[in-house]
């Protein structure tokens, strides 16, 4: 066990092997899905392949971006405790440009390609005969979609890179050598985090999931859909951070992190699982109660149709499991239980995205979910590889950060 704060993460050979193996699984799953269904066949078949790519790329992009949000929100609140593992958060956030580019390619291909099967509002001929989509065409148009998507990914990546650079600069010690400089650093850091939060509020929290996910059901709308997507991916992002913290801790890294920090991460996962449920239920109940056909059409195939098993299972995994398992203090401080809940939650919210995308794309039969899981594993491989690489480049502890003392003496 080493305890130096200057130490870097050295990925074990097995770590990278697993990462590459997962990527290979992803590629194989994608290829076999393309061969068996892609391109040809009926409506469902053609959409199948692209819907899977869409679901996975958007989900994992939002998950790694949630790490970015966690970092900026805690910075904005002048929190100190998260500094103990801030390099882990940064490393996960460094996946944003990589997965962002993949998602960008997929989204733009869906928007400008001639596959109108997923975003049928991209079909000009169809829109001309559809007064509802015609009316929405200011928002659901190719130009607007592309602009927002590109801007979103670029801004996330850029601001994430800026935050990372600021954090790395403290390692040299020059920017935090005097009290005045430390104050200035904290101020600059806060401003940068605030900028990101504004971008985040205008994207994930309010508009981007409308375009990327909700526009698959182009006639249907829910104003809180984006906010609900944010809750979903934020819980998964927190779980990803917790998984990495546990993993590094088990390998003898991160000397400043102790059970107090893990406990607080557990509280976040617990609280935001309930928050997610609250949003899920608020959306569901209003539609259920009003019982207007143009709204209930969304939940009909999900809650009562062929997708109902996935729908209810996802609710159990994402709500009942975290609330019961994480309620007690001891379970939030136990490495094994935190790992189990984190994996469950990441999988549960992946299922949530699955049931957002596929009932619209393939309403008559539930597609073979193993292909989608395979592609999902590919994305996990990418996250593992990029995160591991970023972790290995610089010291694992931001030891000169002005708030590092708060992180050391932190207790819940």
């Amino acid at each position, binding site marked *: 066990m080493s305890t130096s704060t200057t130490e870097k993460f050295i990925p074990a050979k097995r770590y990278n092997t697993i990462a590459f193996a997962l990527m290979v699984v992803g590629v194989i799953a994608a290829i076999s899905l393309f061969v068996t269904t892609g391109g040809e066949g009926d409506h469902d078949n053609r959409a199948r392949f692209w819907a899977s790519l869409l679901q996975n790329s958007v989900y994992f992009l939002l998950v790694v971006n949630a790490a970015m949000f966690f970092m900026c929100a805690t910075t904005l609140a002048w929190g100190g405790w998260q500094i103990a593992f801030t390099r882990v958060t940064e490393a996960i956030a460094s996946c944003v440009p990589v997965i962002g580019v993949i998602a960008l390619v997929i989204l733009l291909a869906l928007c400008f390609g001639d596959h109108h099967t997923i975003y049928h509002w991209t079909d000009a001929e169809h829109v001309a005969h559809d007064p509802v989509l015609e009316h929405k065409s200011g928002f659901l148009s190719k130009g607007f979609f592309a602009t927002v998507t590109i801007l979103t990914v670029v801004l996330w990546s850029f601001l994430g890179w800026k935050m990372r650079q600021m954090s790395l600069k403290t390692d040299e010690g020059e920017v935090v050598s005097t009290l005045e400089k430390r104050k200035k650093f904290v101020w600059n850091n806060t401003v940068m985090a605030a900028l990101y939060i504004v971008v985040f509020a205008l994207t994930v929290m309010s508009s981007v999931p409308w375009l990327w996910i909700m526009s698959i059901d182009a006639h249907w709308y829910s104003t809180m859909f984006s906010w609900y997507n944010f809750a979903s991916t934020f819980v998964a992002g927190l779980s990803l951070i917790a998984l990495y913290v546990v993993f590094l801790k088990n390998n003898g890294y991160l000397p400043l992190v102790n059970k107090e920090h893990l406990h607080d991460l557990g509280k976040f996962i617990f609280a935001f699982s309930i928050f997610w449920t609250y949003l899920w239920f608020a959306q569901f*109940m209003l539609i259920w*109660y009003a019982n207007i056909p143009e709204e209930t059409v969304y939940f009909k195939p999900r809650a009562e149709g062929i997708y109902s098993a996935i729908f209810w299972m996802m609710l159990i995994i994402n709500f009942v499991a975290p609330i019961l398992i994480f309620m007690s203090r001891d379970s939030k401080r136990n490495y094994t239980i935190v790992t189990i809940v984190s994996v469950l939650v990441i999988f549960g919210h992946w299922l949530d995205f699955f049931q957002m995308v596929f009932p619209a794309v393939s309403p008559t039969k539930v597609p073979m979910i193993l292909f989608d899981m395979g592609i999902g594993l590919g994305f996990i491989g990418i996250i593992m590889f990029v995160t591991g690489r970023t972790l290995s480049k610089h010291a694992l502890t931001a030891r000169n950060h002005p708030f590092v003392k708060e992180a050391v003496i932190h207790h819940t």
Partner: protein
Amino acid sequence: MAIKKFITGNFYEEAVLFPAVKKVRRAGYKVHDVYTPFPIHGLDKELGMKDTDLHIAGFIYGITGTTTAISFIGWALARDWQINFGGKPFFSLPAWIPIMFELTVLFSAVGMVLTFCWLCQLAPFVKKDHFNPRSTDDTFVMAIECTDKTNEAEAIAFLKEAGAQDVQIQSRETGWWFGRYDRETVRFGKKVAAV
């Protein structure tokens, strides 16, 4: 309830208090409690206090509230007096969840407040007394419980050595009781001036 003797000492600094608590406990004295005007992080651990079970009580009150809500609404709307609300089923769970949630919160909140009062022996007309009124203002008051074997002079000297000021011997009735504490000399014994 029995009247017990306590030795009290007044501390002005956290930095003095923490080592003093450690020393006093290590010397084998029984610290009755430390009274502070505000919560001090880590003091409960230093005093060797057990984590509270209040939250377990809260959980039990909470599920009692959930059960009360669902069983009453279920009985009233689905069994005793069925009403057709816009074609919804009689047993329409989604509509009841807000009420189940509210009753869960209500039961756990009220129950926990009452339990907390009971644990702290707070109730209308129950009198509480301070070893030193300054523990509500600006100092930390440590009370050591005396047993038959405690050498009081030695304990006083030890406490002073550990950094306490205004060290006193005081008597208190344990547990809770009704009455006017400013008049009941019986329950306090005689106040001993600062030694």
